[in-house]
């Protein structure tokens, strides 16, 4: 027997889907900016595993080169929309009580490991699945903390004198830029895993993010 269950409130669906293109524009314009000083890498000491410096050629091939001014003007425009949408989302989860499903609790840490093992087919029994499982709770909360991190490190780079105390807290101007960059890499990794999980979970789950309701089937 089938039933229709309310899953995602209308507001959360809008915030979610509005955030997607906004974050995409922020990441892309961020790359246009990064081109001008692409200094980061993954490595230990002098041993570099991945050069985030990417060759100038790669930037040119991806049409990301010589577009610093364009990147900045977009970044400083869409930052407001990205911030406002994020703040409204957080405010909504607080006032609607949705935060109860989203924040990790004291069981989440152990359960998140079970979720991961299950997803990797290393553990048979499915972990407890409420509206969101423990791994989801941690991820969906972490992504909000990262969003806040982007806003604060961004402000520290944007106004390092007027908000000098913030720049100082992040360890200086270059450290703030460093964190700002790596949080963005974090978004990209989140995106890859998120999309893979949505595909794996299937249509009914994905559709719920559009129509708000999910079909439950009972025996």
């Amino acid at each position: 027997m089938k039933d229709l269950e309310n899953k995602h409130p209308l507001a959360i669906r809008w915030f979610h889907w509005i955030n997607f293109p906004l974050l995409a524009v922020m990441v892309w314009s961020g790359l246009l900016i990064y081109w001008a000083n692409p200094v980061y890498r993954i490595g230990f000491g002098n041993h570099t595993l991945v050069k985030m410096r990417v060759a100038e050629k790669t930037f040119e091939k991806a049409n990301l080169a010589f577009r610093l001014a364009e990147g900045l003007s977009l970044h400083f425009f869409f930052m407001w929309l990205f911030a406002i949408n994020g703040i409204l989302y957080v405010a909504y989860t607080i006032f609607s009580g949705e935060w109860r499903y989203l924040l990790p609790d004291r069981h989440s840490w152990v359960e998140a490991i079970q979720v991961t093992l299950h997803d990797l087919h290393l553990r048979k029994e499915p972990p407890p699945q409420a509206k969101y499982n423990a791994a989801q709770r941690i991820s969906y909360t972490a992504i909000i903390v990262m969003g806040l991190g982007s806003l604060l490190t961004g402000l520290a780079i944007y106004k390092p004198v007027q908000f000098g105390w913030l720049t100082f807290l992040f360890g200086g101007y270059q450290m703030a830029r460093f964190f700002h960059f790596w949080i963005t890499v974090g978004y990209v990794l989140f995106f890859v895993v998120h999309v893979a999980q949505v595909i794996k979970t299937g249509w009914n789950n994905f559709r719920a993010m559009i129509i708000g309701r999910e079909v439950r089937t009972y025996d």
Partner: protein
Amino acid sequence: MTDEPEVPEVPEVPAEEIVISDGDTLRKAIAVHDAVVDREVRRLSRRGFVVAGVATVAAYGAWKWLRLAKREGDVPWPLRRGLEANEKIAEAYFSNRRLSREFPPSAISANARINGGVGLQANYDPDHWRLQIEGISGQPPASLSLADIKAFPRRDMTTELRCIEGWSIIVHWTGARLADVMAKFPPPPRTPYVAMESPGGGYYVGLDMLSCMHPQTLLAYEINGAPLSWQHGAPLRLAMPVKYGYKQIKRIATIRYTTVRPTDFWGDRGYDWYGGH
């Protein structure tokens, strides 16, 4: 994406939608119920995906419109308005009491990176250099020599120079406070802008008065304890940690107080006119 629908009354279900596996009444009731659910999902999906489609097309249209909008200062005009709105907010919050962090001498960057040569013509004779100040309140323009600038109280600071490209260096600057010079050659009250140009106007910046009055805004003649080199803008340049490097003009020839917003070399080329920290 739709509103939460009211709980639908059980509508009549066409016979062909009811699948009955056997004659059992319960199973029949379940089949009827499931068919209702299926129909409701189809209805919601139609609505949701139509709204999603319309929203996607609208967002794409808005993006295309933004990208193709008439350009102003080499950037689509809505983005230019965005930069200007940010400027208003920044200026309202700006305070001359907030200082750029000062560093110990040990923090000075080994290489004082040179990045811009616009306005530094090779055939310029620095021996003939004079600083012209125009627009002084009730006075004709003043013409100053480097000795005149050095006669003002000597100020030292070790601050970070931040380039719009993302890199930064720590530099020790020595020079006269622009505020001290402006006190002797004052602009008319409430003059909002200061324009500065290199000899011949090859490089030019527009500055807001508030940032010019900042105690860390120097007319610098020394970098890291030595007179400015040619490429660092000898004999006199702006050292101004409340602005990005591109506002810190080298080899200043003219300072002009003005009520008309001055043009700015990089502001004309797609960058923020304000460029303030």
